[in-house]
């Protein structure tokens, strides 16, 4: 199991944060692949909403997208910020971990950092380092 990359999208689809881990052999580090990914997530959201047998009480529909080669885990906040992590397909659901990242890292070190202007690329030192050590501490990271 392993983590390939981690992304944060703002409500208008801009990629605010991108981090690629060494396990990713084909790089996604370019705006075109981000646009592609955002478009897919956005479309899937509508689709999963459409397919739902009943309305979701949490208002959330999309959790993950799995293929033979990778698995995309998604978490969308009420403010329409999307956290996405791509891993090995055997990795168990990381929805809760993404929620933790939102809750304890993004809100604390991005939102509450007055030097960060809302909408800017996220490069707050504290967030970047803490996120990195959090992701590295996940079991799915260690076993790569």
């Amino acid at each position, binding site marked *: 199991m392993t983590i390939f990359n981690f992304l944060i999208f703002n409500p208008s689809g801009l990629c605010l944060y991108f981090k690629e881990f060494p396990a990713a052999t084909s790089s996604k580090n370019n705006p075109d692949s981000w646009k592609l990914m955002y478009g897919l997530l956005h479309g899937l959201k509508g689709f999963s909403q459409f397919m739902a047998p009943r309305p979701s009480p949490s208002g959330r529909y999309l959790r993950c997208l799995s293929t033979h080669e990778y698995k995309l885990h998604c978490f969308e906040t009420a403010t329409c910020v999307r956290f996405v992590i791509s891993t090995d397909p055997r990795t168990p659901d990381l929805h809760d971990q993404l929620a933790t990242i939102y809750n304890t890292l993004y809100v604390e*070190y991005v939102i509450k950092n007055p*030097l960060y*202007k809302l909408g800017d690329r996220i490069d*707050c030192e504290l*967030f970047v380092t803490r996120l990195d050590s959090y992701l590295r501490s996940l079991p799915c990271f260690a076993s790569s």
Partner: protein
Amino acid sequence: MIGRSERMCSAACLELMHAEMVSYFLSARETRESAQKEMERLGFRVGQKLAERYTKDYGRITEPMEVLRFIFSDFWPVVFSKPPDSLTTNNNSLYYIEDTDFRWTSKISVTSRTTLEDASYFLTFPCGIVKGAFAALDVDADVKADFQETPSRCLFTIIFKGKAIPTR
């Protein structure tokens, strides 16, 4: 000890409001120096009022050394949400208070567009508060603060003017 007051509110409110205050002064004043002066003055006023409040049930403090102790062990933990880590001195008029997780700045970190200097404006108001508290208790002191590498580690320097505090 100063108790918690009956009314509490979320620390996030204060943090975000303080951030707005800093940005207001930095944009409303012509120079950064004058913005800092204003913020320190505002903090001074707030510090005086808080000292007035928090000494009410504490008793009358008369010696500058007691004042320093009051600020360090009673006033600071309440106003800045946790006790500071250490109090040191190297002579009669210079004291250092170190707070390795200063809550008013602990979530700040620099971005590619900002520097530690931009973060340092968030220390001005707190310095004013401490200075105001000293002044309210009749100790004329200057209070400055610097980051120790990161904005969460702060070293406050307290410079006593006028009569020096005897070391014990």
